[in-house]
């Protein structure tokens, strides 16, 4: 539809017409702000932990153990310099690996991800149905948006229902 609109504007004499072909779907899938009635519906990207434990491919297992520490996180995400998600290292894998091994040696490559514009309530339901506690949220290009934790999201969704929609 937008290509036809662009050509029509050009025919009407507009000289600098640009067609964002990937459109609204691309904008929302990148977790960017939105307006309108549906903006009050929380998306996955609204409720992520945007600063989860991460590491670089060359980091050693010893360093990853330190980073994960005794906290409640079950995994670290392996990111490149552009924050593209390369893999996931689970706590259990760290315990079994040699301290000198690299993150890239113990990671699960290409973990499943979801886009930030999935409605948060739908994602909670999907995770619950599959017995999962979290989901990795990335842009279509694979850049990390954050980790969506089911329990946190359930609490926040409950709070939103009591007090109104989130502020973006």
């Amino acid at each position, binding site marked *: 539809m937008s290509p036809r609109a662009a050509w029509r504007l050009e025919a009407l004499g507009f000289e600098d017409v640009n067609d964002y072909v990937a459109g*609204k779907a691309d904008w929302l899938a990148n977790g960017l702000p939105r307006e309108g009635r549906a903006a009050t519906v929380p998306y996955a990207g609204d409720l992520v932990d945007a600063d989860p434990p991460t590491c670089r491919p060359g980091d050693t297992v010893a360093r990853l153990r330190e980073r994960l520490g005794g906290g409640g996180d079950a995994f670290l995400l392996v990111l490149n310099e552009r924050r593209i998600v390369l893999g996931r290292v689970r706590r259990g894998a760290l315990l079994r690996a040699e301290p000198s091994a690299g993150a890239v040696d113990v990671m699960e490559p290409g973990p499943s991800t979801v886009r930030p514009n999935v409605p948060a309530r739908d994602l909670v339901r999907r995770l619950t149905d599959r017995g999962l506690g979290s989901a990795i949220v990335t842009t279509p290009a694979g850049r990390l948006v954050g980790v969506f934790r089911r329990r946190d999201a359930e609490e926040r969704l409950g709070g939103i229902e009591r007090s109104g929609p989130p502020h973006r």
Partner: protein
Amino acid sequence: MPRSVDLAQVRRLLAEGAQLVEVLPAAEFAEEHLPGAMSLPLKDLDARTAARLDRRRPVVVYCYDGL
């Protein structure tokens, strides 16, 4: 000739003062749209409705996914 642009180019154009135009039906615009966009549905796009746009500034049109 209209130029196809990606997300990075859109953001740059907007920062430079481009006008953002959603060409989907008005009901879809009301439901959800990009910040600062104006609604100019393709079915209504003619010289009269296009007069709302500033001809001196770049225009970025979008729909849902180009189809």
